[in-house]
Every structure is written in C-alpha cells, then in structure tokens.
C-alpha cells in the first residue's frame, strides 16, 4: 500500500508539468523532485525500531502513537464511524480514550448491539442514552419491533436530549414485514428532529392528520415510508416541506384522503 504512492504520484505530476509548464509553475514541482526521503526524514525523524521513550517530534514515525494526539473532536468523528460496540470499546484503549466515546457524535444501529432480543436491546439503548453528553446525534436506527414491544422506552429515547439534532432516524421494518400487526405508535416527538433530519425511515406506523403539516425538513434527503398509513395531504406537505429531498421510498404504504378510502399503493 505504501509502496505505490510516491513513484505514481510523481510520475503523474511530472507528466502534467511537461504538458502544461505554466499551469503548474516550476518552483513547486522542481523543488519536489529531490529525493523525497530526505525531506520526509528531516520533517519526521524516524525513531529506529521500537525505541521507547517520547517521540522526537509529534509527527514522528515508527512506534509513535499519532492517533492519540489528534484533537478530541476528530477522534470523536472517527469513533462515531465505528459500529456502536466497537465505538464504546475504544474506551478500553488507554486513558486518553476513556471519555471520548461518550462525547462523540452519537451513532447507534440496533443491529450492531448484542442479539439477545429486542427487549434486552431496548434496555441497553436506554442505558447508553443516559450516559451520553455528546454534541448533535448522528444516527439512530432501531427495529420497528421496538415500537411494538417497548413503546414507552422508544418514546423516552426520542425525547432524550442525547438525540438532539438527530440527522438520521430509522425504524426499520425488518422482520415486521410479514406481520399483520396493527399500526404501531410513532412517538409524538418524532418530528422534533425535522430541522436536522437528513434521512428518515418509518415503518408500520400510522401518521395521523395534523402531525406534519406545518413542518419543514430543510435537510431531508432520503425519506422511506414502509407499510405506513398517512393522509395524502400530510404526505404532500412533507414533500413540499423538503426542498432537497433526493430519494422517496413508499413501500406498501397507503396515502389516503380519509379513513383509508382510495388508498394509493406504491
């Protein structure tokens, strides 16, 4: 991996220079030409082998821990890109990492949590959320089954400050697909994220008249309604209130003018 770069890049840049001498002015590239290793080693003294002790410079090489020197905010970004289990376990790396996960942008996919049943997952999610003091939440994705089995817990998650400014919210249909269940109760406060949501997936719910009409979804790019009942004018107003919507999935959903008359299957 590391063997490729220099030769390849240099060749490419030389080629550019040859063709467009004025586009990339001489000085920068001719100066680049001298053995790159010299410049590199001057700037990054290599600690030979596994010599312990403090690195000669923060940009040192060899056995140097670069990652722990990054600012908290960047480490938080990196951590939030990991599945939640792995993200949480970064706390065990070293004391530098002890508090990072809790203040990193929240990202929870229920599927990544241990599979001991949805009720046990719900308990775990509740416990995770109370410890959070992070900035804006990134992603919260759970099975729609949670709405059936743990509706009060879901309600408290959705109103939890840990999810403030949430960007991606999913109630995934998963194994609910085949169930002929009644409409699940979508928590009233689900739409409190309207200003920040970029992705919203709702499954097996009824979105009653009057819930969404006055809302704007300025960031919403992807909306999926799976087996959802929603009044047609509510659906229209969501779409009208989402100026940058790029993707709309209506699956087994019905938009009706009233009481399910003239359902529109898509």
């Amino acid at each position, binding site marked *: *991996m*590391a063997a*490729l*770069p220099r030769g*390849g*890049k240099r060749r490419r*840049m030389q080629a*550019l220079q040859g*063709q*467009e001498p*004025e*586009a*990339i*002015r001489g*000085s*920068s590239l001719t*100066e*680049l030409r001298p053995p*790159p290793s010299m*410049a*590199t080693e*001057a*700037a*990054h003294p290599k600690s030979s082998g596994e010599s312990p002790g403090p690195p000669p410079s923060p*940009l040192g*090489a060899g*056995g*140097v*821990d*670069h*990652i*722990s020197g*990054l600012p908290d905010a*960047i480490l938080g*970004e*990196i*951590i939030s*890109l*990991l599945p*939640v*289990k*792995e993200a*949480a*376990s*970064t*706390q*065990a*790396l*070293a*004391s*530098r*990492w002890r508090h990072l996960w809790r203040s990193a942008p929240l990202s929870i996919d229920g599927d990544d*949590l*241990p599979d001991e049943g949805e009720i046990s997952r719900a308990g775990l999610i509740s416990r995770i959320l109370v410890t959070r003091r992070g900035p804006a939440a990134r992603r919260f994705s759970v099975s729609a089954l949670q709405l059936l089995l743990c509706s009060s817990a879901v309600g408290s998650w959705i109103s939890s400050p840990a999810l403030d400014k949430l*960007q*991606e919210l999913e109630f995934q249909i998963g194994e609910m697909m085949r169930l002929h269940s009644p409409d699940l109760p979508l928590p009233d406060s689900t739409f409190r994220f309207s200003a920040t949501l*970029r*992705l919203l997936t709702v499954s097996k719910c009824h979105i009653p008249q009057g819930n969404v009409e006055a809302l704007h979804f300025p*960031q919403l*790019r992807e909306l999926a309604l799976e087996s959802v009942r929603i009044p047609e004018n509510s659906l229209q107003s969501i779409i009208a209130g989402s100026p940058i919507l790029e993707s709309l999935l209506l699956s087994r959903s019905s938009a009706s003018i009233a009481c399910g008359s003239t359902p529109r299957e898509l």
Partner: protein
Amino acid sequence: MEVDKGKGEAEETRKVAEADRDTVTLKSSDGKLFEVSKEAAARLSTVLAGMIAGGSIDDNGTDLKQIGSEALENVVDYCNKHANSIPSAALISSSISFNTAPFKEPEEWERKFVDRLSHDALFDLVEAANFLGMERLLDVTCHKISEMMKGKSPDQIREVFNIKNDYTKEELEEIRQELAWAFYDD
C-alpha cells in the same frame, strides 16, 4: 493568463489547465511552494476561502507554517484532483452538496487517494486538513482511520496505532464490566 497551447492535449489536460488558470501559491513550513486551484482551495478549505476572500494570499507563497511539505503536497494534490474529478454538471451544485452530504462515504478516487498514504502521511494529512478547515478531506481521512480500526479488538487497535495501554489491571477490569456488552468474546 493561460494561452491555449494548442498541442492537442487530451481533454483531461485541458481541464487541468482550466482548473489551474486561477491558482494560489502555498508555502509549507519547510519553505516549499505549491500551486493549487483557487476555486478548489476556496471550495474545500474554509481557512483558504477566508484568506482568499480577505485578500491575505501572498503571490510569492502564502505561509502555512503548521504544515510540512509532504502533507501540503497531499493537500494540494487532493484539491487539484477534486477540481478535476467532479463532473461539470455536479460542480454546479457541488458547493452545497459536498459539504452537507448526508453520507460521508468517500468516493472511489478519494479512497484510493488515502489508501496509498503511509501511516505517517495519513496522520499528517488529518492534521493539515483540520488546520485548513477542510471538512471533506477530514471526513475522508477519518473514514480511512475508522476503517483501520473496524473489526479489531482493543488489543489489535493498540498494536496498529502504537497506543500505549496506561490503565491498571483494575481500571481495565472496571471498564470491561461497565461495557460488558461491547466486548468481543475475549
């Protein structure tokens, strides 16, 4: 200022010329000069955008004392590649969508761009991107680092990144109990 050189260059080269028509010169901590597309620099770096808008760009090389030549070369390379890789249709709307894209998944070329970096160069680039307020490049590099961590146990992560475990046995045990759900079967 660029005059058509009329040598029948490939489309690719012509685009490079267009993108570079208006460039700024940046100077690394070790005094090396780099030329970068002004448009790409302004679009990708909030700090450079501010300097360009504020007129604090020096024609003889704007000093970036915090960034070494290798990292700056990568920054400049990234900006110039970015300027060339966006289809022109996308470019029109890119000023909005690039910084606010909901998914931070890197593009294929961005993946390759960071994959070829050495460990040191990757971290130098993260710091440079952070210093220059390059949100997209920061996303791409952070994504790469998270990929390097993914699927690994804490022990393996420590090894990859040379992280020194400074916990006592008791502290580590406490964390493991607190986060029993998060640990692998180790």
